[in-house]
């Protein structure tokens, strides 16, 4: 385990916080919006990292919780007129319950079987969102979700206030995720990743640990989904589709699983590639493919793994 000195950590946090405060005043609204999108996907990728990187459970259905929470928040805000303090927790609650139920089923398996059952369960959710037209709007989704209303008569109407709202929640979640992974509970998850049988032999109830991690992962993915509804102001079955689960999986792998910061960086890079490069060439998907191939060949542990190994090389044997 590498350790970072508290002074360096404090400096890093101070710089990051200062940057976050300055950004809205130096960026144009469009790029600020893109930063919010990056942050939302960073949270989504970090929530998956809790499963993949820390517990060793490769899920290909993580978009289910992202999408379910998005639908619940969108629907309650749209049809019942709920404000943020009701609609957002309702979404989180729904995704946590769904993660709990799906966890009961999925955690009976491991490896590629786990991958397949999570995929199947998320496609089930997608099928419901796609087919239940009267509730979800079917293929076209739910357009025109209201802006986040904090209290009667006050909504976050401009990009800057929404940026701070999203940044606050995502920074808090990032800190919580960091605390969770650094805690004895997190150490135990790492132990499960390395060897389940050994942890079992040591007397840990590994199912309970895995279940808790699974629900927590679903919960944070749900927060990302709810924020994404407020960001886009619509929700469609595309939020739950397997393509989105695969996309976030790639973000985690690109950045480096098991580091939290890595997946966040991976998310930022993919969102940037998708939106900046595509203005210049229609071959942007190919370019994205090249990036994946290069990372897989030369940095199998992701970008953070690459940086780490370069640092080690410089420091000498």
């Amino acid at each position, binding site marked *: 385990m590498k350790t970072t000195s508290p002074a360096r950590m404090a400096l890093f946090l101070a710089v990051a916080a200062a940057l976050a405060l300055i950004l809205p005043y130096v960026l144009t609204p*469009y790029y600020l919006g893109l930063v919010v999108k990056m942050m939302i996907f960073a949270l989504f990728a970090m929530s998956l990292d809790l499963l993949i990187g820390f517990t060793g459970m490769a899920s290909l259905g993580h978009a289910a919780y992202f999408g379910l929470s998005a639908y619940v928040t969108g629907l309650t805000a749209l049809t019942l007129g709920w404000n943020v303090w009701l609609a957002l927790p309702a979404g989180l609650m729904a995704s946590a319950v769904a993660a709990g139920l799906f966890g009961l089923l999925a955690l009976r398996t491991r490896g590629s079987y786990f991958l397949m059952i999570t995929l199947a369960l998320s496609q089930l959710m997608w099928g419901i969102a796609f087919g239940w037209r009267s509730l979800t709007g079917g293929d076209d989704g739910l357009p025109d979700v209201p802006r986040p209303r904090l209290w009667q008569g006050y909504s976050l109407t401009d990009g800057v206030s929404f940026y701070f709202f999203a940044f606050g929640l995502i920074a808090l979640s990032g800190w919580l995720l960091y605390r969770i992974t650094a805690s004895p509970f997190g150490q135990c998850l790492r132990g499960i990743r390395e060897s389940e049988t050994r942890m079992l032999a040591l007397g840990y109830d590994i199912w309970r640990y895995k279940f808790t991690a699974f629900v927590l992962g679903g919960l944070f993915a749900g927060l990302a989904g709810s924020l994404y509804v407020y960001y886009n102001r*619509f929700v*469609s079955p595309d939020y739950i589709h397997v393509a989105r689960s695969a996309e976030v999986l790639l973000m985690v792998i690109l950045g480096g699983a098991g580091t939290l910061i890595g997946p966040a960086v991976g998310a930022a890079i993919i969102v940037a590639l998708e939106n900046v490069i*595509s203005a210049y060439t229609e071959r942007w998907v190919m370019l994205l493919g090249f990036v994946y191939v290069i990372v897989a060949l030369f940095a199998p542990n992701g970008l953070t793994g690459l940086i780490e190994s370069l640092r080690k090389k410089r420091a000498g044997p």
Partner: protein
Amino acid sequence: MQSMRLMATLGVAAFASLIQPAQAQEPIRIGVMFPITGPISAQGRPERDAIKQAFEEENNIIAGRKVELLYEDSAGRPDTGLTKVKALVERNNVHLLVSELVSAVGAAVAPYVNEQKIPWVSTVALASLTREMKSPYIFRYVPSSYQYATAAAESAKKLGWKKVYLIGWNAPPGRETHEALKKAFGPENVIDAMFPNVGTSDYAPYISKMDPSKADGVFAAMWGADAPRITQQYVEYGLSKKMPLFGIASFTSEELLGDMPPESEGLLSSYTYCGTLDTPENKAFVEGYKSRYKELPGSYQYMGYMAAKMVIQAIKDVNGKVEDRQAFTNALSKVQVKGPMGMTSFDENRGMVGDFYALKVVKGPDGRLQNSCGERIPQVKDPYHLFP
């Protein structure tokens, strides 16, 4: 002396003000976003190409102003599409949008476009764009599902059809076609309506339920690769001889005819584009597209081309002053253009109005399948009176 200098300065200033209008104007920036990657790219890419063609025919200069097209790729995904439209509007400062054909992307983009007050001509066949979501800035140059299904029903009624089957996508256009057929024929005369999912490979369970003694014909509301597939299977079951198949909207679009079996001769349809129509405008469109892209244009290309043509005429009408959005959208809603298929315009909710043709698939002189253009159905409008 002092006054002399003042006079000279004034003179220069007056002269300068005279030559001011000759100063180079900023180009008109038009955002063109279509699905260029992903499953719908087979339709999105050619449609974008046809838009390019329409502006090239004007040498990219309209009313003395240069036109700059800015391309983006929605990938057919609503959230990607919305982010890309934001990029076009907020980063590239486009004056207007000629964009998109996927209805889910259209639904996601519409509230944003309305809020930003950016004139947008879409080719999204979403009925709600001219209903619940209508806005002075949103124009739809493509028939809505109610519009083309009602037209198809009227066309089939003229052939003497009274009882019908429907097989349609388990998606909004398939369901809305069902609504339109129920209105046109009466609910009891739609013997059965079946809704297979998009991309179904085996239609046997559906086709075997169709009984030629019970109905006059079958409507098919599905598109893309599914259209040739169901036609193939329908022909294999020998049903095409007993009970004709009637494709809704772009079912027999030119790019799909190559994949249809030779026995699909006699396949019926009714739509706003007929590739073989003999008008000078259509010849120019087909030849222009063929010389550029080495293939025949179909109905998607036609929609893109015409959406661009409407915009071009409106820009001419306001003398290139697209910055005045009020004046520009007013001009656009009054535009009348004689296109490849005849006169066309926008209705009071800014939906497309144009001539439809009864189509029949026949063998062309080169032995390949083509659409023959039958009876003209003049000025088909979105039926707001039936579907408010």
